Protein backbone atom coordinates (compact mmCIF):
# COMPACT_ATOMS: atom_id res chain seq x y z
CA UNK A 1 0.00 0.00 0.00
CA UNK A 2 2.67 2.45 -0.99
CA UNK A 3 0.72 4.62 -3.36
CA UNK A 4 -2.12 6.12 -1.32
CA UNK A 5 -3.81 9.31 -2.43
CA UNK A 6 -6.41 11.15 -0.36
CA UNK A 7 -8.44 14.30 -0.68
CA UNK A 8 -11.60 16.12 0.25
CA UNK A 9 -14.09 18.36 -1.56
CA UNK A 10 -16.61 20.59 0.17
CA UNK A 11 -20.18 20.73 -1.07
CA UNK A 12 -22.75 23.48 -0.60
CA UNK A 13 -26.47 22.75 -0.61
CA UNK A 14 -28.51 24.31 -3.47
CA UNK A 15 -25.32 25.39 -5.25
CA UNK A 16 -26.40 24.11 -8.65
CA UNK A 17 -23.79 26.29 -10.37
CA UNK A 18 -20.96 24.14 -9.05
CA UNK A 19 -22.87 20.89 -8.90
CA UNK A 20 -20.75 18.09 -10.30
CA UNK A 21 -17.46 19.90 -9.73
CA UNK A 22 -16.31 17.54 -6.97
CA UNK A 23 -17.08 14.48 -9.10
CA UNK A 24 -15.27 16.04 -12.06
CA UNK A 25 -12.23 16.73 -9.89
CA UNK A 26 -12.24 13.17 -8.59
CA UNK A 27 -12.50 11.90 -12.17
CA UNK A 28 -9.48 14.06 -13.02
CA UNK A 29 -7.47 12.54 -10.15
CA UNK A 30 -8.30 9.02 -11.39
CA UNK A 31 -7.40 9.87 -14.98
CA UNK A 32 -4.08 11.32 -13.91
CA UNK A 33 -3.41 8.14 -11.97
CA UNK A 34 -4.09 6.00 -15.04
CA UNK A 35 -7.06 4.14 -13.54
CA UNK A 36 -8.88 2.01 -16.18
CA UNK A 37 -11.69 3.80 -18.03
CA UNK A 38 -14.43 1.45 -16.88
CA UNK A 39 -13.54 2.04 -13.22
CA UNK A 40 -13.41 5.80 -13.76
CA UNK A 41 -16.85 5.62 -15.38
CA UNK A 42 -18.35 3.70 -12.43
CA UNK A 43 -16.74 6.01 -9.89
CA UNK A 44 -17.99 9.10 -11.75
CA UNK A 45 -21.59 7.82 -11.77
CA UNK A 46 -21.58 7.02 -8.05
CA UNK A 47 -19.78 10.23 -7.05
CA UNK A 48 -22.07 12.44 -9.14
CA UNK A 49 -25.25 10.90 -7.75
CA UNK A 50 -23.99 11.23 -4.18
CA UNK A 51 -22.82 14.80 -4.80
CA UNK A 52 -26.20 15.78 -6.28
CA UNK A 53 -28.00 14.34 -3.27
CA UNK A 54 -26.05 16.72 -1.03
CA UNK A 55 -26.72 19.69 -3.34
CA UNK A 56 -30.43 18.89 -3.56
CA UNK A 57 -31.27 17.83 -0.02
CA UNK A 58 -28.61 19.04 2.43
CA UNK A 59 -27.29 22.33 3.77
CA UNK A 60 -23.68 21.31 3.22
CA UNK A 61 -21.46 18.29 3.04
CA UNK A 62 -18.13 16.88 1.99
CA UNK A 63 -16.76 14.22 -0.28
CA UNK A 64 -13.64 12.43 0.92
CA UNK A 65 -11.76 9.96 -1.22
CA UNK A 66 -8.95 7.52 -0.66
CA UNK A 67 -7.27 5.70 -3.51
CA UNK A 68 -4.90 2.83 -2.89
CA UNK A 69 -3.32 0.29 -5.22
CA UNK A 70 -6.33 -1.97 -4.73
CA UNK A 71 -9.41 0.22 -4.33
CA UNK A 72 -11.12 3.60 -4.49
CA UNK A 73 -13.20 4.46 -1.44
CA UNK A 74 -15.39 7.54 -1.22
CA UNK A 75 -17.31 8.90 1.76
CA UNK A 76 -19.96 11.58 1.34
CA UNK A 77 -21.13 13.10 4.57
CA UNK A 78 -23.79 15.77 4.80
CA UNK A 79 -25.53 18.05 7.23
CA UNK A 80 -29.04 17.43 6.01
CA UNK A 81 -32.47 16.31 7.06
CA UNK A 82 -31.58 12.62 7.14
CA UNK A 83 -33.37 9.74 5.42
CA UNK A 84 -36.31 8.34 7.46
CA UNK A 85 -36.51 5.04 5.57
CA UNK A 86 -33.36 3.94 3.73
CA UNK A 87 -34.98 0.85 2.25
CA UNK A 88 -37.67 3.02 0.67
CA UNK A 89 -35.05 5.54 -0.52
CA UNK A 90 -33.20 2.69 -2.24
CA UNK A 91 -36.33 1.73 -4.21
CA UNK A 92 -35.96 2.65 -7.86
CA UNK A 93 -38.34 5.48 -8.74
CA UNK A 94 -38.92 6.63 -5.16
CA UNK A 95 -38.02 10.27 -4.55
CA UNK A 96 -38.95 13.05 -2.15
CA UNK A 97 -37.58 15.78 -4.46
CA UNK A 98 -39.73 18.90 -4.84
CA UNK A 99 -41.20 19.81 -8.24
CA UNK A 100 -38.59 22.39 -9.25
CA UNK A 101 -35.84 19.80 -8.76
CA UNK A 102 -37.77 17.26 -10.85
CA UNK A 103 -38.26 19.82 -13.60
CA UNK A 104 -34.47 20.05 -13.86
CA UNK A 105 -34.38 16.31 -14.50
CA UNK A 106 -33.21 15.36 -11.01
CA UNK A 107 -35.26 13.50 -8.43
CA UNK A 108 -36.13 10.55 -10.64
CA UNK A 109 -35.47 8.11 -7.82
CA UNK A 110 -32.56 6.52 -9.67
CA UNK A 111 -29.65 8.05 -7.76
CA UNK A 112 -29.11 5.61 -4.91
CA UNK A 113 -29.86 2.57 -7.12
CA UNK A 114 -27.30 3.91 -9.64
CA UNK A 115 -24.70 4.13 -6.85
CA UNK A 116 -25.44 0.58 -5.73
CA UNK A 117 -25.18 -0.75 -9.30
CA UNK A 118 -21.90 1.05 -9.99
CA UNK A 119 -20.00 0.08 -6.86
CA UNK A 120 -18.63 -3.05 -5.17
CA UNK A 121 -19.52 -1.94 -1.66
CA UNK A 122 -22.10 0.61 -0.62
CA UNK A 123 -23.53 1.58 2.76
CA UNK A 124 -25.70 4.45 4.01
CA UNK A 125 -26.12 5.62 7.58
CA UNK A 126 -28.57 8.35 8.38
CA UNK A 127 -29.79 10.19 11.47
CA UNK A 128 -32.97 12.23 11.24
CA UNK A 129 -32.22 15.91 11.72
CA UNK A 130 -28.45 15.36 11.67
CA UNK A 131 -27.45 14.09 8.29
CA UNK A 132 -26.47 11.20 6.10
CA UNK A 133 -23.17 9.43 5.50
CA UNK A 134 -22.75 7.37 2.40
CA UNK A 135 -19.71 5.23 1.67
CA UNK A 136 -18.80 3.31 -1.41
CA UNK A 137 -15.84 1.33 -2.64
CA UNK A 138 -14.79 0.23 -6.09
CA UNK A 139 -12.10 -2.42 -6.46
CA UNK A 140 -9.19 -1.64 -8.73
CA UNK A 141 -8.23 -5.27 -8.94
CA UNK A 142 -10.57 -8.25 -8.59
CA UNK A 143 -10.96 -9.49 -5.00
CA UNK A 144 -9.58 -12.96 -5.73
CA UNK A 145 -6.34 -11.46 -7.04
CA UNK A 146 -6.17 -9.23 -3.99
CA UNK A 147 -6.27 -12.24 -1.69
CA UNK A 148 -3.76 -14.30 -3.67
Amino acid at each position, binding site marked *: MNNVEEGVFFLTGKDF*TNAGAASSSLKGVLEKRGVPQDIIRRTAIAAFEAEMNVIIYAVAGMMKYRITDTEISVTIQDMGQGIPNIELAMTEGYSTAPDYIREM*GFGSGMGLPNIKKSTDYFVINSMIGEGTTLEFTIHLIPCDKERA
Partner: protein
Amino acid sequence: MNLQEIMTNLSLEVKTPGLNLDREVTGGYVSDLLSDVMGNASQGNIWITLQIHLNIVAVASLKGLAGIILVNNRRPDEDTITRAVAENIPLMTSDLPTFELVGRLYALGLRCR
Protein backbone atom coordinates in the same frame (compact mmCIF):
# COMPACT_ATOMS: atom_id res chain seq x y z
CA MET B 1 -20.24 9.13 -38.03
CA ASN B 2 -18.89 12.32 -36.58
CA LEU B 3 -20.60 15.28 -35.00
CA GLN B 4 -19.90 17.54 -37.95
CA GLU B 5 -21.84 15.23 -40.30
CA ILE B 6 -24.76 15.08 -37.90
CA MET B 7 -24.80 18.85 -37.58
CA THR B 8 -24.79 19.33 -41.35
CA ASN B 9 -27.37 16.65 -42.13
CA LEU B 10 -29.85 17.80 -39.50
CA SER B 11 -29.23 21.55 -39.94
CA LEU B 12 -28.39 21.93 -36.27
CA GLU B 13 -27.42 25.29 -34.86
CA VAL B 14 -24.15 25.12 -32.93
CA LYS B 15 -24.24 27.17 -29.73
CA THR B 16 -20.66 26.56 -28.60
CA PRO B 17 -18.32 28.46 -30.93
CA GLY B 18 -14.80 27.21 -31.45
CA LEU B 19 -15.31 23.62 -30.33
CA ASN B 20 -14.03 20.92 -32.64
CA LEU B 21 -16.91 18.89 -34.07
CA ASP B 22 -14.64 16.32 -35.63
CA ARG B 23 -15.39 13.72 -32.98
CA GLU B 24 -16.79 10.25 -33.44
CA VAL B 25 -20.36 9.66 -32.26
CA THR B 26 -20.81 6.08 -31.04
CA GLY B 27 -24.60 6.20 -30.74
CA GLY B 28 -27.41 8.20 -29.24
CA TYR B 29 -29.29 8.44 -25.98
CA VAL B 30 -32.54 10.29 -25.30
CA SER B 31 -33.60 11.32 -21.83
CA ASP B 32 -34.57 14.34 -19.76
CA LEU B 33 -33.72 12.57 -16.50
CA LEU B 34 -30.11 13.19 -15.53
CA SER B 35 -29.69 10.02 -13.50
CA ASP B 36 -31.00 7.99 -16.43
CA VAL B 37 -28.28 9.47 -18.64
CA MET B 38 -25.66 8.91 -15.92
CA GLY B 39 -26.70 5.28 -15.55
CA ASN B 40 -27.44 4.30 -19.12
CA ALA B 41 -25.78 6.47 -21.77
CA SER B 42 -22.46 5.29 -23.19
CA GLN B 43 -19.23 7.12 -23.81
CA GLY B 44 -19.21 8.93 -27.15
CA ASN B 45 -23.03 9.07 -27.39
CA ILE B 46 -24.90 12.13 -28.57
CA TRP B 47 -27.48 13.12 -25.93
CA ILE B 48 -30.87 14.45 -27.00
CA THR B 49 -32.77 16.39 -24.32
CA LEU B 50 -34.96 19.38 -23.57
CA GLN B 51 -33.06 20.27 -20.39
CA ILE B 52 -31.16 23.53 -20.84
CA HIS B 53 -29.64 24.27 -17.42
CA LEU B 54 -25.91 24.03 -16.84
CA ASN B 55 -25.93 20.72 -14.96
CA ILE B 56 -26.41 18.91 -18.30
CA VAL B 57 -22.81 19.87 -19.09
CA ALA B 58 -21.52 18.17 -15.92
CA VAL B 59 -23.39 14.99 -16.86
CA ALA B 60 -22.09 15.02 -20.44
CA SER B 61 -18.55 15.72 -19.28
CA LEU B 62 -18.53 13.01 -16.59
CA LYS B 63 -19.95 10.45 -19.03
CA GLY B 64 -17.62 11.47 -21.87
CA LEU B 65 -20.55 12.15 -24.23
CA ALA B 66 -19.85 13.47 -27.73
CA GLY B 67 -22.27 16.38 -27.40
CA ILE B 68 -25.80 17.51 -26.57
CA ILE B 69 -28.69 18.32 -28.90
CA LEU B 70 -31.46 20.49 -27.47
CA VAL B 71 -34.82 19.90 -29.12
CA ASN B 72 -37.91 22.00 -29.85
CA ASN B 73 -35.79 25.08 -30.42
CA ARG B 74 -34.96 25.29 -26.74
CA ARG B 75 -32.29 27.91 -26.04
CA PRO B 76 -29.55 27.01 -23.57
CA ASP B 77 -28.96 29.37 -20.64
CA GLU B 78 -26.00 31.71 -21.07
CA ASP B 79 -24.09 30.01 -18.22
CA THR B 80 -24.81 26.63 -19.82
CA ILE B 81 -23.05 27.78 -23.00
CA THR B 82 -20.10 29.20 -21.05
CA ARG B 83 -19.71 25.96 -19.11
CA ALA B 84 -20.07 23.83 -22.23
CA VAL B 85 -17.27 25.72 -23.97
CA ALA B 86 -15.07 25.42 -20.87
CA GLU B 87 -15.72 21.66 -20.62
CA ASN B 88 -15.41 21.07 -24.38
CA ILE B 89 -18.97 19.74 -24.77
CA PRO B 90 -20.59 20.86 -28.05
CA LEU B 91 -24.16 22.11 -27.61
CA MET B 92 -26.48 22.16 -30.60
CA THR B 93 -30.10 23.10 -31.04
CA SER B 94 -32.80 21.85 -33.39
CA ASP B 95 -36.28 23.19 -34.04
CA LEU B 96 -37.53 19.62 -34.39
CA PRO B 97 -39.33 17.84 -31.57
CA THR B 98 -37.50 14.84 -30.07
CA PHE B 99 -39.38 12.15 -32.00
CA GLU B 100 -38.60 13.66 -35.40
CA LEU B 101 -35.02 14.50 -34.54
CA VAL B 102 -34.28 10.98 -33.32
CA GLY B 103 -36.02 9.53 -36.38
CA ARG B 104 -33.64 11.45 -38.59
CA LEU B 105 -30.61 10.42 -36.55
CA TYR B 106 -31.71 6.82 -36.92
CA ALA B 107 -32.21 7.28 -40.66
CA LEU B 108 -28.66 8.60 -40.87
CA GLY B 109 -27.51 5.27 -39.51
CA LEU B 110 -26.89 6.22 -35.89
CA ARG B 111 -27.86 3.51 -33.42
CA CYS B 112 -28.20 3.22 -29.66
CA ARG B 113 -25.26 2.56 -27.30
